[in-house]
Every structure is written in C-alpha cells, then in structure tokens.
C-alpha cells in the first residue's frame, strides 16, 4: 500500500476512535491481503508522531497505544468551550473564613463552637489551597490543635492593606450601614470606569490583567 494512503488511513482511524489504539488493533483494520507489516506500521506511526497533521492534530503515543489529539496551541481555546463557570463559595465557607479573619489565631474547635456546626474539612483544605489561611502555631490542648490565621494573600485578594481595615464587629452589626458604605465604594468605582476615557492607560492595565 502507498505510504501516503496508509498514513491517511491511520490518521482517520485514530481520529474516529474514542480511545488510544495499539499496533495490533490498528493492523486489524486492514484486510489480510492489504495488511501492512507491523514494522511498516511502526515506521508510519513514528513519522506521524514527529510531524503535526494540518498544524492542528498530533499523533501521540500514550500508555495504551496511539491517539490523535489537538495540539496544545489550540487546546487552550477548546478548554474554554468546556470549562465550567467558576463556582460560588458556600455560606459555610465564607463564615469559616470570616471567623478565621476576625478571631485569628483560632482553632477549628473554636470555629465550630461559634458556628454551632462542625467545620467541613474540605473548606479548610480549599482555604489552604487558595493560600488564604495558614497555620501559625498549636494550642496547648490535648491533640495540640492548629491555630489558623489569614495570610497576606487574603488581604491582597480583598484589597486590604492590613487586618485593621476590616470593619469592626460593631460596624458589621449595623449591617445596613456596612452595605451602604460598600455601595458608596462601588459607586466611586463605577464613576471611575465611566470616565475611563481620561485614563485609557488604566483600562488597558485592567484588560491585561484579566
């Protein structure tokens, strides 16, 4: 069989298969009379692995055989197509975080005591992953529980210079006022965006970061 045709057949088979195919399965696609030698197949596959097809597809050997995949250059767009919308954090997550922020250093047991429910392990794990909390010590109690506190990254995320900038508990108690203050801040931001003509540079900066 013509090597160019053989190449095309192999690409089309790999593209139609939803799983990697090994040499044996690939060779069984051919009628006995036209079946290429395994060595021939190997040569063609090696060539295919070396050069991309139409700049987009690459043939890749993985553990269970060969597969056709989209080159990484283009995969970034596809990932966008299937990507999930960012989830929202649960109320439990936020409460745990805020208690660590205001009561730091604090143990899990203390958070549980205040919230009245057990702290979900995955919440603590996520907080560590985001690097919003860290262990600052251990409490001298049976089991030496970890003392949790917030990080600089936490402050950065919420645009705070220091913990002092967090509203006081009294301010928070007056929820309406707290919201009002926040809304004022948001309005100021909105005005800033509306007048963005003047500060083109600033807008560009925002886009670059996004």
């Amino acid at each position, binding site marked *: 069989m013509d090597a160019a045709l053989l190449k095309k057949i192999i690409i089309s088979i790999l593209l139609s298969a939803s799983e990697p195919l090994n040499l044996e399965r690939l060779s069984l696609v051919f009628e006995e009379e036209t079946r290429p030698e395994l060595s021939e197949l190997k040569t063609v596959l090696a060539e295919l692995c070396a050069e991309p097809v139409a700049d987009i597809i*690459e043939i890749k050997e993985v553990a269970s055989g060969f597969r056709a995949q*989209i080159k990484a250059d283009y995969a970034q767009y596809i990932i966008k197509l299937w*990507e999930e919308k*960012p989830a929202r954090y649960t*109320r439990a997550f936020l409460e745990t*975080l*805020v208690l660590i922020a205001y009561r730091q250093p604090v143990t899990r047991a203390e958070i549980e005591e205040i919230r009245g429910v057990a702290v979900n392990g995955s919440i603590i794990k996520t907080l560590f992953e985001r690097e919003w909390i860290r262990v600052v010590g251990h409490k001298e109690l049976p089991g030496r529980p970890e003392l949790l506190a917030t990080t600089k990254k936490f402050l950065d995320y919420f645009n705070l210079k220091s913990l002092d900038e967090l509203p006081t508990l009294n301010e928070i108690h007056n929820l309406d006022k707290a919201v009002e203050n926040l809304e004022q801040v948001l309005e100021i931001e909105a005005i800033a965006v509306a007048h963005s003509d003047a500060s083109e540079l600033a807008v560009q900066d925002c886009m670059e970061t996004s």
Partner: protein
Amino acid sequence: MEQSLVPLESQEIPLETAAFPEEGETYIARIRGEPLLQLPEDLYIPPDALEIFLEAFEGPLDLLLYLIRRQNLDILEIPIADITRQYIAYVELMKAFRLELAAEYLVMAATLAEIKSRMLLPRSTMAVEEEENDPRAELIRRLQEYEQFKEAAVQLDELPRLERDNHLVHAALPNMKQVKPLPEVELKELLLALKDVMQRVELNTKHQIVMEPLSIRQRMTEVLDKIRQVEFAEFSSLFSAQEGKLGVVVTFIAVLELLKQTLIDIVQTEAYGTLHVKALSTSEEL
C-alpha cells in the same frame, strides 16, 4: 428485490394444476375471444414459497407494482376469477401465521375483483358520470404514490449517513493542566457572612441567659414534623412571629441542635439565596 424473488421463480408449481387441462387444445379461458392457454406464472405462488413471498413484498401494493413492472401486466388484464381463488387459498395458509397480512392482501384481491366486475358490466352513460370514482384510477393513483415513496426510501438509504459513510471525529485534548477558575468573593459577601454568624452568636448567648419557656426538644420534633411533610422547607417558614423573640430563639436553637445531630441539613443553592431545611433521617426517635 429482484434477487429475493429468485426462489419464487425457480418453483414453477401451479397451485391448482388439477383444475386446468394439460392438453394444448383446450383453453383455460377465453379472453376477448382469444383462448388463454397458459397462466402468467408470477401470479401463482406455490404454498411452500408463501413465506418468502410475504417477506419479499412490503404489501399488496408492492406486489402489484412488481407484477406490473415485471410482466408489463395491464392491471385490467388480471384474470380475476383465478386470482381470487388463489388469494383465498393463500388466506387459508396464512391463517397459520400472519393473518393480519392476509387481510391486507385480501382487500387488494377484492379491489381487483371489483374492477373486473365493473368492466364486465356494459358501459352506459352512467359510467361516464362515475369516471371520477373509477376504482382503476384510484388504484393507479395509489400505486403511483406508493412507488414515489418506495423510490424515496431507496434514495434515503443511498444518502451518506453517519456510522456507515461518515464518522465523527474524536480528537483528544492534550494532557494540559486544566485550570479551573477559582470562585470570586467580594468583601461584602464576607461581611454579610460575619453578620450572620454574629447574629447567631447573640441569639445563642440570649438563650443561655433566658429561661426557655418552651422545650427545645419539643420544638425539634415540631421542626422535624414540618420539614418531613414538605421535604424542603424554607428556613424562615420554621419561625413564627407570633411567638416573639423567645419563640424564634428556641426554634433557632432547635434547628442548630438538629443540625448538630445531623438530623437535618441546611442547604443554600446560591449565595444570599433562600436557606432550605431538609430532613436527613426519618428515625422515630424524636
């Protein structure tokens, strides 16, 4: 279709040989003054071939189309008396397996017989008036229509289709580290959460000071009863304003206690959304 009919043609056994003279000089029937010496073979399907016959055709219309196409048979020339006898013989055989099909073929036989009988009647001026209702015209219309769709079915089968002619492409994605975007949080959300916690803490504190006029256990039972009825109860629906602050506190503590004992779960589908309470266990303990 031609292929599938080979068995029919190879078995040239007339069903009722005895009824027909074998001598060349005697004729079976006289059609328009001419003696008919031989019956058209295709009309006579030996009983052995009946099953093949039924499978080869999609019904009486299909059979008739075949006869017309193959024999150049004029619909009007079908020897009705014989074909009717044949059909009835088949129906007897069909009773054994596929009677519902026999019925359809019978209807066709009856139609053909009607056409022939009409032809035998002297045509008067009345026939001209009836021309629109001529059963032959109706039969031909049906045959035409059926053949159109029969051909369209063949054409549809010839269209390139998935799984047979075309195959979908399943290009895999490279093993890239898929970065899942992290949820965004606003400071406002955080503060609202804190406000909630503080309110709960305050209520808790009050509870510790104030004597409880209602048994918390009793209230726990009431809450459980309430949410069992509706599966998902709105958090706020558990509270009754008429009971005043104390009642609210007791209910709240009852809910917390239920939560602690993992008898209920509080779910919130979206941030700031309504809280819903659902029962986790239906134990009879409480």
